């Protein structure tokens, strides 16, 4: 590569990287700014926006709701998907692969956007509007096919010798799963948990459709309401809240990229 060619390439890449990073600058500066605005206002760093956030009851409640939704869904998905993945891995029946493919098709075709109306109508019939349980069930159903697919793949690679040995000792179904297989699929369960957590923690549409009152709103909805409510939006509070909200995802980002490199993210979202 000629020398000037390399220089042009590096300038191009720097500009692109800046384009990716510049909109993020606000999230780094504003939460610590004394005069928070929509612009970049550099001042002596302060924690006053975080104090303001700590006084806001809705914000704290929403944090709790987000935790309930995310942890509840992740736990449900990991448990049900590993049970189903185990059963699928250790059984043979006609159409097994077709069944898994069919489930994956459903999970990619039936998106939140395409199904928001029937899911709302269904939850209305089940008296589950404005309930955190509804949000957990809808998220879990959406992620289960992918989770089953990943975990079945993991369990396929667990040698059957362990179970054979346990079988001799008289263990059966639930024992085999709980004592032998589940402890061995830790890495697979971790992948599924991270995948689900990042997506569910960040989701806006599902709670936007299903949650009706502030008391039940997760953080995504609370931030939306702080921003759209009448009057001047409390920019300082919103920016501090956004940073806290993004933090778990950012921690996962740094941890995963350090451990596995950025390529790993290819399978993490979607």
């Amino acid at each position, binding site marked *: 590569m000629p020398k000037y060619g390399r220089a042009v390439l590096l300038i191009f890449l720097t500009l692109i990287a800046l384009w990716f990073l510049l*909109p993020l600058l*606000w999230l780094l500066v504003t939460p610590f700014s004394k005069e928070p605005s929509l612009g970049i206002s550099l001042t002596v760093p302060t924690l006053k926006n975080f104090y303001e956030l700590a006084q806001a009851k809705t914000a704290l409640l929403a944090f709790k709701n987000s935790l309930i939704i995310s942890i509840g869904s992740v736990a449900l998905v990991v448990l049900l998907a590993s049970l189903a993945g185990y059963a699928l891995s250790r059984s043979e029946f006609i159409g097994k692969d077709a069944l898994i493919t069919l489930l994956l098709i459903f999970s990619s075709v039936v998106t939140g956007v395409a199904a928001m109306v029937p899911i709302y109508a269904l939850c209305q019939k089940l008296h589950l509007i404005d309930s955190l349980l509804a949000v957990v069930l809808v998220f879990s159903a959406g992620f289960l096919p992918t989770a089953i697919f990943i975990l079945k793949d993991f369990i396929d690679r667990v040698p059957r010798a362990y179970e054979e040995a346990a079988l001799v000792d008289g263990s059966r179904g639930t024992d085999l799963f709980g004592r032998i297989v589940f402890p061995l699929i830790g890495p697979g369960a971790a992948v599924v948990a991270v995948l689900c957590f990042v997506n569910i923690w960040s989701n806006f549409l599902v709670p936007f459709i299903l949650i009706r009152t502030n008391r039940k709103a997760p953080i995504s909805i609370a931030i939306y309401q702080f921003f759209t409510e009448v009057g001047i939006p409390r920019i300082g509070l919103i920016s501090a809240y956004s940073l806290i909200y993004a933090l778990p995802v950012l921690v996962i980002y740094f941890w995963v990229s350090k451990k596995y490199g950025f390529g790993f993210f290819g399978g*993490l979202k979607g």
Partner: protein
Amino acid sequence: MPGSNQFLSRKTIFAFLAPAFILISVFLVFPAFWVIYLGLTDQALTGIKAVLPSFVFLKNFRVALGDRFFYNALKISFIFCLGSAWLGQALLGLVLAISLYELKGFWRNFVSGAAVLAWIIPEVVVAYLWIAFLDKDFGLLNQMLGAVGFSRINWLYTHPLLAIVIFNTWRGTAFSLLLFSSALETIPPAFIESAKVMGASLIQRFFQIILPQIRAILLTDLILITLWTFNVFTPFLLTGGGPSFRSEILPIYIWRTSFKYFKLGYGSSVSSILLLINLGFALLYLLARGRKKHA
């Protein structure tokens, strides 16, 4: 496989499968079919038609095909896809992956890291980051442009579609970049080196060596990101579909007719059209993957 059922009785297998399959059936499979039925009724969000909807057969579809806002949403969605998925994410991802191929090290981590960061931050947060970035009076973009003599522009108001196209390119390029980067790794370096030695230009190397090797991945990428872009709701947070419907992509149209105008039946009929489009993309994806396996 002989004796593969020895660990688990049929009853156990059934019991292990049941909870997951019940949940999937109720909250994933059932809604997909029910939406087609709902689309044939005049179900409303409130009032008498919320309790006692009547069957109206294909009326909703006729109304949709006669509604200029429906065509507007289809058109906006198409431009949004073409701009942000094809010209944006796929093309930029490919150019970046090829540029980074020979650099590796610091540059690869720097650029990929920045792209992935934009990709994983929660959607509500990135939406407000862009509202701040594009703000007419205080936004960083206008501040920078102002510094070199441009006048202030209210981007989300005067160029809403362009704004969400650029936003969505920024948001989603990481996926294509990572996919193409890993695809390029599978090309034997000797191919590219020997082409260089023989004096092939960059353009020749791309069309004669790189492209044939990554064609299948390129197709997979295009199908997936088109499907996702067609179903993305984040632009709602930036523009709400406006001003005057100029950034109203199909998902926002479905939301508006169903939840703002309370016409759940009508919204369902449009949703089932979107489901069909999604199914088309999913089948294309399977077809493309199947072909790759046989090749």
